[in-house]
């Protein structure tokens, strides 16, 4: 079942493509070396109407549907431009604020986020707690009309640039999951500091960082959603996050297949093209088949999601199965590039570097399998 792209989507895709060609492509290799994209690129994305496309217009968003997020992923990831953390900002943080925020919070944050003036992050993971989110230790102590936050987060996307961070904290350390709250922290608050921009094996242009909170005071009005409701709030938005990984995986697989067909049809060895070898033909036939099945499953998940019918277990299947397939497909394709597949100037090498984290972040595949197992 094809996705219901309309003429507005076609136009949107063209404008994204133009933006990527002009504002991302010339800089991405340099951003990889620097480990972060420019703030200017964020602002330009905002000006071009490419941030928060899925958020209602009354809050400065694009007022468009989820397919605009799909298009953003496709147009960036077909080039392996994984530096800009637009997805996290637009499709993870913004929905939390839209669904959980007070009128004041939404008005204060969403329009500026849509303009790219405020860059956001969400901080759940800690050095001692990744998959096991219940055991986070960052503490938010109530003191009058303020929360006082102390702790440390790590692997935080947009960590070097974020102006506002949603921080998962323990407001009641004795209460397990029910003692968790989400609190907005502005980077300008005293006591907040950014740690290292972490050096990763892939997604090198994406600023992934440690964040430190040393008795950071924020007004109680910075609470996002219900006190103690943090865990439940996180669960409600995770299916979309998992779907985004699936969309990325299929986009990259489809691109990898295209690059590999082009390369193997051109590259000659032993008197013919690499594409002429039966081994190549059959490997690519297998890839094509798997990618087609993947695309069918993904589109079904996207449509369910747009009807608000994507359940947690199906989102988990989407995330683990597609990311695992992506790694296998990209690996197979890389092999067909021979020595060039090992050269970072070729997109297949960078796709290989990037793909590996898709099985780890947004909930490791082991957690995904546990979720699916429980649904049986």
């Amino acid at each position, binding site marked *: 079942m094809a996705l219901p792209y309309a003429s507005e989507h076609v136009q949107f895709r063209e404008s994204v493509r133009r933006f990527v060609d002009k504002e991302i492509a010339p800089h991405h290799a340099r951003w990889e070396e620097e480990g972060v994209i420019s703030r200017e690129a964020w602002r330009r994305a905002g000006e071009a109407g490419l941030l928060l496309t899925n958020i209602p217009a009354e809050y400065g968003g694009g007022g468009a549907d989820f397919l605009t997020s799909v298009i953003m992923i496709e147009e960036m990831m077909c080039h392996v431009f994984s530096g800009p953390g637009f997805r996290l900002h637009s499709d993870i943080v913004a929905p939390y604020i839209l669904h959980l925020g007070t009128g004041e919070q939404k008005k204060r944050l969403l329009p500026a986020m849509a303009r790219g003036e405020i860059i956001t992050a969400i901080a759940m*993971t800690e050095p001692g*707690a*990744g*998959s*096991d989110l219940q*055991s986070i230790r960052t503490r938010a102590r109530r003191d009058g009309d303020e929360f006082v936050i102390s702790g440390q987060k*790590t*692997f935080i996307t947009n960590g070097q640039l974020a102006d506002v961070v949603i921080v998962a904290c323990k407001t009641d350390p004795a209460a397990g999951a029910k003692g968790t709250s989400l609190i907005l922290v502005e980077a300008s608050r005293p006591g907040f500091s950014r740690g290292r921009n*972490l*050096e*990763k*094996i*892939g997604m090198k242009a994406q600023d992934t960082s440690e964040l430190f909170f040393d008795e950071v005071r924020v007004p109680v009005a910075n609470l996002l959603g219900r006190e103690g409701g943090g865990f439940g709030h996180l669960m409600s938005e995770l299916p979309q996050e998992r779907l985004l990984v699936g969309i990325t995986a299929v986009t990259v697989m489809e691109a990898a297949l295209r690059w590999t067909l082009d390369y193997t049809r051109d590259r*000659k*060895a*032993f008197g013919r093209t690499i594409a002429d*070898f039966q*081994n190549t033909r059959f490997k690519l036939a297998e890839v094509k088949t798997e990618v087609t099945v993947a695309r069918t499953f993904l589109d079904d998940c996207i449509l369910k999601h747009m009807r608000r019918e994507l359940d947690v277990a199906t989102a988990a299947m989407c995330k683990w199965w597609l990311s695992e397939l992506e*790694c296998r497909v990209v*690996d197979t394709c*890389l*092999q067909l590039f*021979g*020595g060039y*597949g*090992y*050269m*970072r*100037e070729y997109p297949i*090498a960078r796709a*290989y*570097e990037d793909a*590996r*984290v898709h*099985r*780890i*972040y947004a909930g*490791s*595949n*082991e957690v995904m399998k546990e979720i699916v197992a429980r649904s049986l």
Partner: protein
Amino acid sequence: MPLFTSEHEEIRRNLQKFIAAEVNPHVDTWEEAGIFPAHELFKKLGTLGFLGLNKPVEYGGQGLDYSYALLMAEELGTIRCGGVPMAIGVQTDMATPALARFGSDEVRRAFLEPSIAGDFVAAIGVSEPGAGSDVASIKTNARSDGDDYVINGGKMWITSGTQADWICLLTNTGDGSIHDKTLICVPMKSKGVTIARKLDKLGMRASDTAQIYFDDVRVPKRNRIGEEGQGFTYQMIQFQEERLWGAASALKGLEMVIADTIEYTRGRRAFGRSILDNQVVHFRMAELATEVEALRSLVYRAAELLVAGEDVTRLASMAKLKGGRLARELTDACLQYWGGMGFMNETSVSRFYRDFRLMSIGGGADEVMLTILCKMMGILPGSSNKA
């Protein structure tokens, strides 16, 4: 009959001490820099006799049999990256075997002796931008001009290419057929040799890999290894040792990845227990350890036969094929259990993940190994029956 004797074990201990003192403390720095100091390191290795274990005594080697080369290959696998062992392997088992076996006394004095001593850094120049697996279709040619060859062409993916003193170059000396290729020792400082660029690679980052141009490079004919026109044959023979070396050098590295992963997952806790205590995790470690032992048996068997004077093309190719595939599977599986830390450059598992990916490509891609094996099984279309 055990492959390794007490003499072997003494060499193994010395090598382990050397690696612990002179190599592993610096690997992180070299990875960051994208290069390791080959002259410095090779001189130290050479002085201790490690660069000529199975090379002729007349040129400073130890004259020992292949089992010693195997031992060294295996121990190099304890270096905490793939790039440095690879460069050492080029020096001992890829750029020099043909020279040692087929070179004249004069050319061996000029190039083999200093390489064994660690005064020269060696490179092997076979691959070109347009010819990797298809060695027969290389274009670099060496035109005869009096007592010299004049060489034109280019090579690609040359390990230690920015530091090498000389390169063992496979060239066309005739019409480009496989019977018209020649191996020539080319000093890298010769006029006309240009290092075009240092390549930015997915892994093996401590090893400098270069693209090199040769523009009317003049070398005396006495730099030729063996007979003109025999280069392809010599290189094919040289490949056997390269392939077996590759598989041998993977063994301890892969075991280190398992050990590091067990250590990490034992200490890391989630959901009330260590990651290691999850059945899928400890079962997977056992599966992978089994595979490494199976590969080791294949490698040792090939080495024993080589020591006994047999042709081990078949087993060496199998070992290389299996090694490359196991290395990918094992590093990938182990990385997953490190969670987010597996994606960080600072962990050993992520470095080995990147480094080991090359094994299925460099030194003869998997597809080439498969083609060789099919030929030997007599099942490659068009080839004559060979057992």
